């Protein structure tokens, strides 16, 4: 499900089934050397998370990306967000990001870090097979958490 009016309505009605929230953390770097890389990361992360959403629509809610620049970055943000999402009824909260520095707080919240793959020059077929490969790596992470209950 997406965080939009329709899907949120289904979430409210089906809370016992939709027990997982996915939050993309997107770093926005506006310096001329890093801007392109930053765009690649955003592109990859949003493509991948919408692919995950498509596969597991009935089990998870994909939050809008939380974006920040270097100076706005705050370690407390994911922790607080996680607490709020737990309060809202989500059993499992996953943060997914291409920004390696979040792995610092990996002990406290579930951080899934992935290096960005530049998708911009790929044709659709290659792109979707890459995303499928990435998803296949993520499934065990999700299913071990889901199995814990």
């Amino acid at each position, binding site marked *: 499900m997406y*965080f939009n009016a329709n899907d949120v309505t289904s979430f409210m009605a089906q809370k016992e*089934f939709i027990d997982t929230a996915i939050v993309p953390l997107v770093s926005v770097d506006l310096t001329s050397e890093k801007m392109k890389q930053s765009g690649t990361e955003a592109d990859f992360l949003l493509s991948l998370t*919408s692919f995950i959403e498509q596969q597991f*629509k*009935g089990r998870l809610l994909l939050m809008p990306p939380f974006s920040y620049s270097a100076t706005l970055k705050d370690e407390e943000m994911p922790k607080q967000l996680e607490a709020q999402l737990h309060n809202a009824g989500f059993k499992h909260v996953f943060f997914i990001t291409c920004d390696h520095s979040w792995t610092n707080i990996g002990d406290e919240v579930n951080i899934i870090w992935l290096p960005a793959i530049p998708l911009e020059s790929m044709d659709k077929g290659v792109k979707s097979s890459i995303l499928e490969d990435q998803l296949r790596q993520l499934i065990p992470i999700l299913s071990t958490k889901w199995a814990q209950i």
Partner: protein
Amino acid sequence: MSNNRVSRRQFLSYTLTGVGGFMAAGMLMPMVRFAIDPVLQKHGGGDFVQTEHKIADITDKPVKVDLKFEQVDAWYKSDVTNVAWVFKEGDQIVALSPVCKHLGCMVGWEEDSSHPNQFFCPCHAGRYEKNGKNVPGTPPTGPLDEYEVQEKNGFLWLGPTKANTLVK
């Protein structure tokens, strides 16, 4: 010249009609879109899409077939790949939609080793028989949808989805 001048009253009524027209369009557009069958909308007008699969290669074992089209989702445009599970049932080609009838996850063929010969939904362990019939006692409340199928030049073409016709 004075004959051609637009009087104040005319000017007002012109502008108001214009504005009213916009407003009416603003109200009508969403209504028109709601009136269009959501199934057709999802497939860009309900046209058939060519797949890379040859009719001759299809067996009685379900295989995953990709269907590509662009879709605008929530705040992000993505090239969503839709899939179909395609197999032969006697002489008939069957293409089932993988979208679980519970809450919409993607089901897979024989993905749960303890239930061979069934479709399995990883989200809440929903199960379906090969013809798409939901297994009672699992969350899904109806059978999997079916795609319209066509054969052109030996290739499989898939159209819009419709309610399952195999489950009696």
